[in-house]
Structures are given as structure tokens and as C-alpha cells.
């Protein structure tokens, strides 16, 4: 049983070994002549405007989560639409129940003001 995992072990060894070797080789073989210009961060040739680690508005996350929710719903709807002929009334009703639950949630977030930016 365990022998079946030998390829994975080999894969791990090779990948770690290769990565390590390349890093060490780069360190040892490449010429290293750092200067102030080379070490300074830049964006597209300009001086950096500000720190890249800036704060995001937390509301983006709310929008993102809501987006994922309704995006996933589509992922359910497509296969359902394709096999609708085969699954009959029951399949149709099952999806209606699912959408009903979802719609109540949607109305809830709408009326609670989760979709308004300000």
C-alpha cells in the first residue's frame, strides 16, 4: 500500500532538490554588484508612490462575499438547466426551493442595506 506512494515521495525529493539546487546555483554563480539604484523599489520605471501594503476598505469583502454567493448559484443553475428535460417536475421543484431560500436571503441583504456603499 505504502509502496504506491513512492512516486509521490520521489516527486517531493526531486522538486525540493531541484528548487534548492537552482537557488544555491544562482547565489553562487551569478555576479552580485548591488548599488543604491538597483536596490530601490520602482514601479514601471518611476519612483514608488506609496507603500504597497495599503489598507482596503472592509466593504470590499462584503461585496466580494455576496458576489461569490450569487456566482455559485449560477454554477448550480447551468448543469440543472442542461438536464432539466431528464429530471422532470421534481428536479424543477427542487431548484425552485433552492432559489426560494436564496431569494429570501437576497431580499434580506437588500433591505438591510448590505448592497449600499454608503
Amino acid at each position, binding site marked *: *500500500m*505504502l509502496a504506491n*506512494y513512492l512516486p509521490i515521495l520521489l516527486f517531493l525529493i526531486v522538486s525540493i532538490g531541484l528548487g534548492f539546487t537552482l537557488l544555491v546555483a544562482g547565489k553562487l554563480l551569478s555576479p552580485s554588484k548591488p548599488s543604491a539604484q538597483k536596490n530601490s523599489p520602482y514601479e514601471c520605471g518611476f519612483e514608488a508612490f506609496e507603500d504597497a501594503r495599503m489598507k482596503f476598505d472592509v466593504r470590499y469583502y462584503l461585496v466580494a462575499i455576496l458576489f461569490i454567493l450569487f456566482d455559485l448559484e449560477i454554477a448550480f443553475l447551468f448543469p440543472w438547466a442542461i438536464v432539466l428535460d*431528464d*429530471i*422532470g417536475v*421534481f*428536479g424543477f421543484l*427542487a431548484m425552485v426551493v433552492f432559489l*426560494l*431560500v436564496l431569494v*429570501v*436571503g437576497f*431580499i*434580506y441583504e437588500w*433591505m*438591510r442595506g448590505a448592497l449600499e456603499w454608503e
Partner: protein
Amino acid sequence: MNPLMTQNIRSLPYFIPEAILLGTLLLVLVCDLLQVKGKKTLATLPVTVTGLVACFAVSLNFGMNGDTASGLFHGMITLDPFALFFKYVFLGSTLFVVLMSRMGSDIDRKAHAEYHTILIAITLGLMLMAASTNLLMVYLSLEFVSILSYVAAGMQPRERRSREAALKYVLYGGAASAFMLYGMSLIYGMTGTTDIYLIRDTFIANSSYNFTLLFSVALILAGFGYKIAAAPFHMWAPDVYEGSPTAVTAFFSVAPKAAGFAVLIRVFGTWFSGVGDMGGFGESFTHLVGVMAIATMVVGNFGAMLQSNIKRFLAYSSIAHAGYLLMGIAMLPNFAEPGFRAILLYVIFYVFMNFGAFFVGALVMESTDSEDISAFRGLGKRNLMAAIVMAIFMFSLAGLPPLAGFIGKFYLFAAVIQQLTFFTLLMITVAIITSVVAAFYYFRIVRAMFLDPSTDTEPQPTSRLAQVMLTILVIPTVVFGVYWTPVIKVVDKGLVTHAPHVYETQTANTDTDQKESPVADLKTP
């Protein structure tokens, strides 16, 4: 009609309890919306309570009629006495917590509808957890409960500690789920199925000691262990318990824990009990879970000794109790039945005594506005009834006769001692020593209530509803310590899980095409 579809339709009647909860959940949301629009003021509490009671009644009806079925929705869930037993526990707990948070003030009144929605949804998840017979469903329902628990922990968004609790819970939960999924994927890789009964068949077919199996079981244990807050996966518990609203903490310490044990028994009980030693695997399993149990007992009991915050103290105490219960799981490969019976028995007793301890704790915290254990000082003078009741819960949690906690512990220890090996003796020794430690710290509360000097002697009466709820909790704690035969009967009924491969209803149903074996079922395109 398509046979796959027929099975789904036939499964629906057995899904009514869950459907009722789902309906209640939506109804509460709609009630809340009407409140927001200001058209009408609808209280969500009656709706929530009615929904929970209706669900309980329907579940009870299934239980009374012996109307059970397995292999529902293509082997995803089952409705056996075991699942029903836990459904009662979950619904009772939720009902209690809903009423308990009605009295507390830590959750914003405006947020109560949302809070009820989350509680109902968690209960729905817990019920699915106890009923799952497929690894996919186990994972989904566990995650269902977890995600909503994160929200419940953060129900006081203005409190820094509450936010911290929610975030810590998310991070730990995510990591634990990842480990568990990895373990499940290894099991799937070995057996080629996610149906726990089919997996068992594969184990029986090639019963040889297998390192990969032990490894994946250990990984899955990480996920389940996190849910029951067993060491070394307990670190989230004290912080989350401290930061969450008190009623939510009480809920966390009972319901998801019970569900965690339900899943442990369902999954590992199906896989490894009565399978035999499987070439040394059984012993390894006992050692794996046993070491976890020992660590949990030590960490929980010694941790509780050092706490000065009431909620953290109760958190560690609940970790310790998970340790005792884990001993029952550890005995599973050879002596499954007594261990399981002891666990189910303990769960019932634990619900009453732990809710009781939390309830009095919440009353004290509310009236003194302090979470320090010193808030208990002089409670004997301020409110004699609450103090006496709290003393009973503390003695019961410590496992003193003649209270329910003693009987629970007695059955657990008896289940472990059935097999006399060096390891079981070690477990029992640790359990007894840590029980003594436990007695010490539970008595500390009792001493604070009655013996410690206190300047504050102003009487603080409890409300009528609180008195009723305390009575409901304290009577079983006392009575079951003396007369526990009815509980044993309920437990023995609840121990019945359905034999694998009966993909049909258990009631008088002679329809032959219902007897689809799961293999055929899974192979149908």
C-alpha cells in the same frame, strides 16, 4: 421516472424535521425584515420557539413510532435512533439557549432576529452532522456548523473580545478543516468511496495494518477533535468561550461538542468497532485516541485550576469533560458498546449540569457586572437559591455521588476498565487523579459562594423565568443521580445505528425495487 429521482422523493418525508427548521429560519428572517420596514412589530422569539418545538415534536414522533430509514438521498444521511437521540439533544439545547439569551443583555435586542436565525441554522447543521453517513456530508455539515459558529461568536461586534473570538475561531477552524479534508481524501484514495459503510467493507476485506490508514485517521481526528475541543486542538476554546456572548458560550460547550462525539461514534464506530484488531491497527487506534484523552484531561483540569475568569474556567472544565468522554472512544476497537453507552449517557447528564453552571454563571455575571470568579463571593447571602443550585451543578460536574455527574463518570470508567491492559490502567489512573484536581477547583466556587467573606449582602432575586429554568435543570441533575434507569433506556434505544446496506425504509414497506444496494446505487450514471 428516473430511479435516482424516486429515491430522493422517497427520502423527503424523513427530512421533515430539518425542513421545519429551514422554514422557521426563513420565517424569522422575513419577520425581521417586516420589523426593519417598520410596518409591524413582530417578535421573532415566539416564531423561533414554535419552530424548534414543532421540530422536536416531529422528531419525537419518528422516535416513538420507530419510523426510521437509512440511505436517504443516496446514502448521504440516515434517520436512525442514534441520529434521533442527538436531534433531541440539539433541539433541547437550542431551545434552552434561546430562552437564556432572552434574559441576558449581552446581545443587542435589535440583533435578536439575526441571532435566532444563526442559532436555528446551527441546529440544522448539527442535526445533519449526527445523521451523516457519507464523508462528504460529514464535512459539509461540519463546515455548516463551523461557519455559523464563527458568526455566533462575533455576535457582539462592538466588543473587542467578541471580534477576537470570531477571528481566532475562523483561523483554527480553517486549519482543522484542512487537516480533516486531507485525511478524508487519503481514505477516499485507499477505498475509492466516501460512503462510510462501503469504506468499512473495504477495511474488512483487506484487514492489515496500514500506516496510511492510521495517518488519515489521525488527520480526521484533528478535525473532529477541534469540534469537541480535545487537546492538542483545544487552544481556541478558552479565548472563543471568553469572547462570545455567554449564552452562545453555553451553547458551544454543549451542542457542537455532542455533535462532534456523534460524528466520532458514527464514523469511527462504523469503521472500527467489531472489525477485529486489523493486524495491530485496533491497538494503535486505542493508543492514538487514548493519548489524546489523557492530554485533554490533564490540560482541561489543570488549566481550569489556574483560571480566574468564569467563562474561561467553564471552558477548561468543558475541555476536561471532553477528555473523559474520549476514553469511551478509545475503547472502540474491542469494547465499543459500553463506551458508546457511557458517552450517550454522559451527554444527557452533561447537558443539564453544564447548562446549569453556565446559567447561574450568567446570572452572577449579569448582576455583578464582573466576569471574575470573585463575583461568586457571598452569593449564598445574596441569593441562596442560586447558590445552592450552583453548588449542586459544581458537585455534579466534579462527579460526586449521588448526583448525575457521578453516574456518568461511573459508566465511563466502568467501560474503560473492562479491558485490563497497562494502557487502560494508565488512562483510568489519569482520569481519577484529574478528577480529584477537578473536585478542588469546583469546590473553590462553592467556597467562594458560602464561606468567603463578602461585603455585598444585598439580596439579588432571580426572575420567575430564571427560577423555572433553573428548576428544570437541577431536578434531573439530582434525580438521575439516584434513579437513572429511564435514561439508560433512552440511551439504549439511541445506541441503535442502522446496519449498513439497508437502503430502504424500516417501516412495513414491501416495495421490492427499493432494495437497491448502495453499490448499484453509486454505479448508476
